[in-house]
């Protein structure tokens, strides 16, 4: 079977299907898949032409054959796919060509960019691959996708449901990325990990313009490579593409030299192009590729190759953090995201994500946090849990190649965790401990590392994807063993050639001036060969140590990063405009966030937290609110004031949490942007303002189904609910939500707002209040909750 030797011999795919259909007069806006039912012989003829030109694999005419795109037709995906694959089979039979089930993008964006959930996408793809296999497809080709997460849903749907080779090609624009920002490096790393059969590029540009992307892809995978480019760019004079068949074939030569072995054509290419490629390939031999080996993790748009000290941010973790724990209990995802963004801003390259807390559904929380987090940060993620179900929930939905934290030397752990790493193409972090705990001596720890490595290799995980944590013991307890950790790092590097990870700050537990010990130990560990310190990057001395290390080890060429970071003499000595009265009201009025937080800390030394909120924060906000109502200040200033009040409020809440008291709250409010609506800046503005006034907000996010609002109202026992909708098309969801909740909770009170709402309409759909702006939301909350 030709699919077995993809690296050793050339494989020729087909050319454009849409091009052939349009040339035959298929009008715009018509589903080309219908032709499988209406004109099967016409489609068969196109396949025949390609096979006669030399195609060894033809794509079934099923690019858009999913439930969503076919919804306006009378056919199901299964019917179309069955017909299309059989047509292709008939055409292929005589020459022994293979038939690929062609799968294109679903046509809807996945969450959080769009409204389609990962599992919904999975189900749509599952329907296609099952139908394709039943109909006799030889392989699956997932093509022209631009979202790596959508690709992952399709790949998993194929791997978990059918036993067919999987080809994947994605479409890149001239800026080297797909429309949603995926780059070829991340594509290569991720799909190589997931274990597809072959991967490459198709559509959008001609071969020459795709060469830079192909080179990048080539440097990040050892898998067979596919090139199925357009026939150049559309020529505007004659509505055809500008690259002739011979020119197209010529442009493939550098790709052959790069080691590409699978060729075809996309938009604008015809059987003539396939003939030219076939002629070219007869004169050439596949070029052997150098085998690559490197350690890397990635998000969809950002790959981190581990070739110098790389910070893993440790802050997304509730253990020992009361405010964080409360945020998880309140489903306050923004708080968690904020921890992620601030760590990236401070220099974290990878983010550890741990949401383990008794009393919450950890797997569901992991899914939510990973999904939301990867929409706002580019850093690759480290999925951290002791619970395999939680790990899998995160691994499934993560976009890119993650790191798993963690497996250890116990058989049970190795048996459950390593297969997850293999299946989802993740790197895995191995802890040097087993059922007997952490060995004192370095050589015993290294033996556990060796065992973890061997077991990982046994199930097909790559050597470079195993990282080892030699573990830190507190110097206050086991001072003699500190050097054993350092020794173990050195041995793991030298004897096993693995990347090393270390949670550094445990070293100083129980001793004063922890930062000093942490920094000193970090420097020692880096010297011993530590690759991935797990730290809080917001603590400057830790990042400073790494910056210095990178200069001294010549990682930071010409000290460029170091100079940029520390040569601040020239940049403005930004005055933090401390005003003499140390007045929190002044700070809030003028939007001075840091100042307001400092004032709050100062006030806490003399006043009760609740008094600060009632007597300082709220009156200041009321003043600002009045100025806003009068038109003296505008919304941006109101929000600046709110943002600074937020900082002050956080300081007060933290003091309350640390004192072990109940959180301050003036009452509970649910906020949601209704089902179907994804514009939520208005709701977020209302949220910030209400939080300032001391209300506890359960923010359900955007595109929220009525049932979810109801269940949150019941679960958290909330009476006051605010809904926002921006479009006329989503007002129906608003009405539905109000009716559903009120039917089940008679005492529920709704306030609604959004660009298309009017007071009359609010009344008509059963809302109790209409809020014109954020300030009015506060007035309503005061009236209802006090």
């Amino acid at each position, binding site marked *: 079977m030709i699919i077995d030797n993809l690296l050793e011999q050339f494989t020729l795919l087909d050319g454009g299907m849409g091009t052939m259909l349009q040339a035959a007069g298929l009008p715009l*806006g018509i589903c080309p898949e219908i032709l499988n039912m209406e004109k099967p012989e016409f489609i068969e003829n196109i396949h025949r032409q390609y096979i006669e030109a030399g195609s060894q694999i033809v794509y079934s005419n099923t690019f858009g054959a999913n439930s969503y795109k076919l919804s306006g037709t009378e056919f199901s995906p299964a019917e179309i796919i069955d017909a299309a694959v059989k047509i292709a089979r008939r055409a292929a039979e005589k020459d022994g060509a293979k038939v690929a089930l062609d799968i294109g993008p679903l046509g809807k964006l996945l969450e959080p960019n769009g*409204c389609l959930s990962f599992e919904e996408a999975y189900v749509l793809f599952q329907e296609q691959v099952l139908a394709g296999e039943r109909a006799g497809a030889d392989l699956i080709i997932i093509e022209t996708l631009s979202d790596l997460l959508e690709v992952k849903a399709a790949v998993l749907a194929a791997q978990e449901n059918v036993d067919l080779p999987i080809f994947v090609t994605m479409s890149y624009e001239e800026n080297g990325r797909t429309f949603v920002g995926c780059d070829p490096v991340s594509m290569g790393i991720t799909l190589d990990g997931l274990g597809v059969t072959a991967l490459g590029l198709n559509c959008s540009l001609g071969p020459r313009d795709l060469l830079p992307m192909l080179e990048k892809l080539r440097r990040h995978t050892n898998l067979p490579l596919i090139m199925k480019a357009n026939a150049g*760019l559309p020529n505007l004079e004659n509505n055809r593409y500008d690259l002739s068949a011979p020119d197209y074939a010529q442009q493939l030569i550098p790709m052959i030299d790069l080691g590409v072995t699978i060729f075809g054509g996309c938009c604008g290419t015809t059987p003539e192009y396939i003939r030219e490629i076939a002629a070219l390939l007869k004169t050439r031999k596949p070029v052997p590729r150098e085998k690559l080996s490197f350690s890397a993790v990635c998000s969809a748009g950002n790959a981190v190759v581990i070739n110098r000290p790389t910070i893993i941010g440790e802050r997304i973790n509730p253990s020992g953090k009361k405010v964080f724990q409360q945020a998880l209990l309140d489903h306050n995802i923004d708080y968690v995201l904020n921890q992620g963004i601030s760590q990236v801003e401070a220099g974290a390259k990878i983010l550890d994500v741990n949401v383990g807390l008794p009393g919450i559904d950890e797997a569901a929380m992991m899914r939510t946090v990973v999904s939301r987090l990867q929409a706002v940060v580019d850093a690759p993620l480290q999925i951290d849990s002791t619970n395999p179900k939680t790990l899998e929930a995160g691994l499934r939905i993560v976009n890119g190649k993650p790191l798993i934290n963690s497996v250890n030397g116990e058989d049970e752990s190795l048996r459950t965790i390593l297969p997850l790493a293999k299946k989802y193409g993740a790197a895995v972090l191995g802890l040097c401990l087993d059922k007997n705990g952490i060995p004192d001596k370095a050589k015993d720890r290294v033996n556990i590392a060796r065992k973890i490595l061997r077991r990982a290799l046994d199930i097909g995980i790559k050597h470079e994807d195993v990282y080892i944590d030699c573990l830190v013991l507190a110097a206050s307890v086991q001072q003699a063993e500190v050097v054993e950790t350092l020794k173990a790092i050195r041995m793991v590097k030298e004897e096993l050639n693995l990347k090393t990870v270390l949670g550094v700050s445990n070293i100083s537990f129980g001793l004063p001036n922890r930062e000093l010990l942490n920094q000193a130990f970090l420097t020692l560990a880096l010297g011993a060969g530590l690759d991935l310190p797990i730290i809080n990057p917001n603590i400057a001395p830790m990042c400073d140590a790494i910056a210095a290390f990178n200069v001294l080890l010549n990682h930071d060429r010409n000290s460029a990063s170091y100079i940029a970071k520390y040569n601040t003499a020239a940049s403005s000595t930004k005055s933090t405009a401390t005003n003499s009265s140390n007045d929190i009201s002044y700070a809030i009025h003028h939007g001075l966030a840091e100042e307001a937080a400092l004032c709050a800390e100062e006030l806490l030394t003399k006043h009760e937290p609740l008094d600060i909120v009632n007597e300082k924060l709220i009156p200041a906000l009321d003043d600002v609110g009045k100025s806003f109502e009068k038109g003296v200040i505008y919304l941006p*200033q109101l929000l600046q004031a709110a943002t600074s009040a937020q900082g002050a409020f956080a300081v007060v809440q933290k003091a309350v949490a640390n004192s072990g008291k109940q959180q301050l709250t003036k009452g509970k409010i649910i906020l949601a942007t209704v089902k179907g609506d*994804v514009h939520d800046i208005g709701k977020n503005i209302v949220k910030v303002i209400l939080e300032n006034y001391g209300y506890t907000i359960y923010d359900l996010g955007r595109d929220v189904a009525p049932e979810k609002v109801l269940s949150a109202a019941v679960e958290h026992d909330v009476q006051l609910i605010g809904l926002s909708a921006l*479009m006329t*098309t989503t007002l129906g969801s608003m009405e539905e939500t109000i009716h559903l909740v009120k039917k089940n909770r008679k005492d529920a009170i709704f306030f609604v707002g959004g660009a*298309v709402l009017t007071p009359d309409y609010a009344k008509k759909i059963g809302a109790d209040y209409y809020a014109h702006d954020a300030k009015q939301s506060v007035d309503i909350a005061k009236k209802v909750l006090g």
Partner: protein
Amino acid sequence: MFFTEALVESVKKTPGEGRLCRNILLEPKEQMYREAIRYLGYKSETDLTPEIDDLVRKGLDEICSIAEPRTIYRYFFLDGQKPGDFSISKNSNSACSSGACSISLQQYEGVILMGATLGGSVDRLLSRIQIRNISYALVLDSCATAAIEAICDDLQNNLTAIYAAQNRYLTNRYSPGYGDLPLSAQIPLLQMLDTERKIGLSLTPSFLLTPSKSVTAIIGVSTVPQKKEHVSCDICEMRHVCHFRRREVSL
């Protein structure tokens, strides 16, 4: 599909269809600045504090540097054989239904359908900043709206010049969701332009465009010069809630 049958695609296409078109965003941004502060609710520049002024300028720079704007358009000749078939107005039989926000295109020789987007990078930035700093997020949101409008204006200016050379004249552009052109008109518009493949623009089930800072529109093409239309707010379905409504409108 309610308006595609009478359309015959012409070969006139935009050069570099679907490619990045960042140029207009690299030019001086005074017009965008004025639009952005208008979206923020300011009546005049003098109402801005220096801090907000800085924030708007920073926001425009940030949006313009990360945006990946792409546009696409296609010209469609209106088949005179079946003039009644083509209408994007609910009142399809009136010459120019109830007012200026809707157009019945029978009087035109053809139409241009257009789509434009700032791309997903802007949405990502907006989501991130909303979590970190809501006031800056609001400013950025307005800046992004100003930027996509600038992209559309630039495209329309280019089209006007191209068509003027052939003695053809363009109307204003009309987008689904304004006047009485329903949001559901997004479906055929996106299909006819193949926006998903050409510029990465798609729809949610409730007809919202994703990426969010995107525009689709219809422009009429006529053989006679078009009056500069004064678009009255009276006929618009948004007149009761619109923050930018002209004051004289009777409600």
